[in-house]
Structure formats: structure tokens, C-alpha cells
């Protein structure tokens, strides 16, 4: 399958690979996986006292599109507030990376990873949280 230049760029030079200590204050960890392709994605965000995401790290085992989606997302969330980060949609990711239809689920995984990370951050803060809604369809 032909990957777009942007996917190849993120795949070959992934940004922000790594981990934070998940128990550190202000760190939210989201782990999601897609059974259909066996991809696993761990996304961590570090949030300062103003509620702004200062830093983000990821670790993804999966195809090029899954790695590129998570790499791109770590770039995007930096400097955003938690709510702004939650507004990132999988369609934005898929469009930016020019993902083909069969790889849309990789962008869904990245969107769900952000939600899971924010949900974990809020749970750690003790903020009442209804959990996050899993998308019903992957388009």
C-alpha cells in the first residue's frame, strides 16, 4: 500500500517517542488497542497547573499509519488545553496524513488514545468524569 509522504515522514522520524512516569502529578496515560490489526498505542500527556498540555509522549506498536497518527497527535496536543485536545477528531488526523479508507481506524485509535489519556488525568485529579465514549463506528 502506498503511504503518503507525511505518513512516511512521521514513521521514519517519529516525534516524542517515549514514556513519562505514569504516577507523576499531571501525567495522564491512555492505552488503546485495535484487535483487527493488533495495534497498541500508549499516549501520555503532561498537563501544567494552567491546564495546558506541556508535553506528550507515545509508544505505538503497529503499522506505519498507527505510528504516524500517534506521532502527529503528540505534536498537535502540545500547547493545547485539555478541552482543545479533546476536540481533535479522527477525521482531522486522517486528513492531515492523507490516510486511505482502510487505515482510518488508525486515526480512530489516536483520537481514542487522547480521550483515554485525558480521562486518566481527570481520574487522577479526582474530577468527576463519566469516562469517555467509545466511537460507535470507524467510518
Amino acid at each position: 500500500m502506498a503511504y503518503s509522504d507525511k505518513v512516511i515522514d512521521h514513521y521514519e522520524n517519529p516525534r516524542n517517542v517515549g514514556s513519562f512516569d505514569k504516577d507523576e502529578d499531571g501525567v495522564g496515560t491512555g492505552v488503546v488497542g485495535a484487535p483487527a490489526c493488533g495495534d497498541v498505542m500508549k499516549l501520555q500527556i503532561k498537563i501544567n497547573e494552567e491546564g495546558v498540555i506541556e508535553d506528550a509522549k507515545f509508544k505505538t506498536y503497529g503499522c506505519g499509519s498507527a505510528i504516524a497518527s500517534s506521532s502527529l497527535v503528540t505534536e498537535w496536543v502540545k500547547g493545547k488545553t485539555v478541552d482543545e485536545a479533546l476536540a481533535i477528531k479522527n477525521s482531522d488526523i486522517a486528513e492531515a496524513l492523507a490516510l486511505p479508507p482502510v487505515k482510518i481506524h488508525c486515526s480512530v485509535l489516536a483520537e481514542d488514545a487522547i480521550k483515554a489519556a485525558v480521562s486518566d488525568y481527570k481520574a487522577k485529579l479526582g474530577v468527576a468524569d463519566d469516562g469517555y465514549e467509545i466511537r460507535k463506528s470507524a467510518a
Partner: protein
Amino acid sequence: MSEMAPRNYFEFFQLPEMFRLDQSVLDSHYLELQARVHPDKAAHLSDVEKRLSLQWATFANEAYQTLKRPLERARYLLRIHGVDTREEDNTAMPAEFLLEQIEWREEMQDAIAGRSEAALDRLGFRLKKEMDHLIESLGAMLDVQQSHPDAAVLVRQLAFLEKLKRDLDQAHALLED
């Protein structure tokens, strides 16, 4: 071949609709059917009959491939019960399970980087045990407790382990080169 279309693959092979099945019974029923519908047997028949015979052979093959493999069998059984395993879009696996997957992947990467076939073997052995255990649980969930949504969770987990196994096999082949 019976005139009546079978309701599903289990009925086709005269097997009970259960996850736990006797592989040898499945095998013998398949060989029997395959012998009866094999295209060579249809050489003297009319074109219509030949086409029918080929369709039956294809159906028998699909049915066998589906029931033979635990993951496919469980998925199929759930579909009969109207449960979609949603492996494309259900990303919320138990975090503990996913973190384990990351650990497997890391160990596999280390084994490949260290070109250690022994380490890959150890991983393969552990994975086999894990998969056997999961298949055992699936049997209990599907046949005894008959809790289909819970079984769907296990199917998603087994799908992960099977992918891991394929990647491990590939890593093996890579090191052998």
C-alpha cells in the same frame, strides 16, 4: 448432497453449535463431504450440476476453515448469536491487557535486536500457554456460561495474541535468514 441448505456451518458438518468441538469429527466429516462434492466427481455431469458441485466444494472449504480455527470459530459462533465482536472500532480493551501487549512487543524487539532465537522461542512458548489458556476460557464462556458479550471481549484478546504469534513467526524467519 442434501437439497436443504444448511442453517450454518455447524449444521453443515452435523456438529452441535458449540465452541468446544472434536477436531477429529470435524476432520472426518469434512473429508467425507469433500470426497462427495469434489469437482473431479462432477466431470460427467451437466454444466449446471458442475457449477453446483463447485459451489458446494467451496462452501465446505469455507465452513471447514472457519470451524477449524478457534478464533474464527468463536467469532462465527458469536455472529450466529447476533453479537458483533467489533474488532475494527472497539479500542477500549482492559488497560492491563494492553500494557501486557506492549511488554510482549518490547521483549520481541529486544530478542530481534539481540538476534536471539532462544529468546524468541521462550516468548513463543509463553505465548502458546497464554493462548491455550484464553481458548480454554472462551470455551467456558461460550459453552457453559453462554455469556456472549464477555466472550466477545475474549475474542478481541485472542485476535491480539494471534497477531503477536504471526509477528513472532515472522521474526523467527527473519533471524533464520
